């Protein structure tokens, strides 16, 4: 009997610089490595509507490059290589779902922080949107309680 997770080859990981997203990336690397797959690390620059979508956003792009470089390091430490992608969009959730469909990935691994401001675990809007709308498998990697900040 085959399980979906054992067959995952191409995996997309949204990275935002948080510890949780890097955790998710590490997990994706381990999974893809087993199946000789490929991992896309995706950083989305959200463009305010006061600006055109293709506006030149240098500081934001530099920040993105920095985070993708960290993703490279994480993969490196696991003796693996990821493909970094910098996207510019109105909304990160939409952009990631579109990208997952475009790349026809087998799974998204998404990292979420352990936050319970109202007594219940809160998931960010972006993660919620992906969970509801992406056609492929979604693996949620929640960081340990009390662990890791951004």
């Amino acid at each position, binding site marked *: 009997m085959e399980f979906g997770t054992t067959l995952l080859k191409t995996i997309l990981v949204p990275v935002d610089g948080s510890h949780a997203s890097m955790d998710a990336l590490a997990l994706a690397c381990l999974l893809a490595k087993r199946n000789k797959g490929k991992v896309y690390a995706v950083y989305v620059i959200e463009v*305010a*509507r*006061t*600006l*055109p*979508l293709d506006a030149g956003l240098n500081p934001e792009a530099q920040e993105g490059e920095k985070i993708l470089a960290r993703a490279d390091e994480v993969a490196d430490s696991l003796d693996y290589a990821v493909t970094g992608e910098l996207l510019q*969009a*109105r*909304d990160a959730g*939409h*952009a990631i779902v579109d990208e997952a469909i475009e790349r026809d990935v087998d799974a998204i691994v998404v990292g979420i922080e352990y936050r319970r401001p109202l007594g219940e675990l809160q998931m960010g809007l972006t993660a919620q949107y992906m969970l509801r709308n992406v056609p492929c498998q979604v693996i949620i990697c929640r960081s340990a309680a009390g662990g890791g900040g951004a």
Partner: protein
Amino acid sequence: MYIIVVGGGKVGYYLAKELVEEGHEVLVMEKDPVKAERIAEELGDISLRGDGCEASIMEMAGFGRADMVIAVTGDDEDNLVVCQVAKAKFNVPRAVARINNPKNEEIFKKLGIDTTVSATAAILAQIEQELPTHPLIPLLTLKGGGLEIVEVKVPENSAVVGKRISDILLPQQSLIALIVDEDGVPRVPKSDTVVRAGDELMAVTRTENEDALRSVLTAHATFGPYGPIDSQGR
């Protein structure tokens, strides 16, 4: 162009889709959370939940760089305010408003809203077109011969008013078969029957001469769309 559509009902939704297809950058704003969610499902990230009359949200939505704002909510007062604030505060070059009460066109115009669109007025115009005050209603197509029976109400200012049937130059293979006057009395016209304004004429004509017949019977006495009647075909 960057076009902001305020109101995510059916009008806003289909409008946005068309505009996207035409290659414009589009944003749809809807304040009702349920409607906003539905439209976000369909249109993705070109929708924004929020009140299109709230200046801070308008700012965030990028009204400052919008080339056009189209307000299509179901409430005329909201459409008015969206357009007025867009123009006064954000200097949006063009503002278009949907109006539900056709009478509101006057106040919108007075307040500087360039363009108003009223479905109610459009439908009324259509209905008026269908009424026999407007020329030539095809009644029946006769089998085979390419002939049809048409009805036309003679307008007040028509060039044929006061003329005798024999003096009216009809297109080829056309004839006036029946006249019903304003009191509803039908008469078979003779050559010396005089046509009066408001008469309803039933005529037989060839399909291809329909337009010519229309112009003969309805063209204005002096400056009708087809010129003076006497120049027709002479």
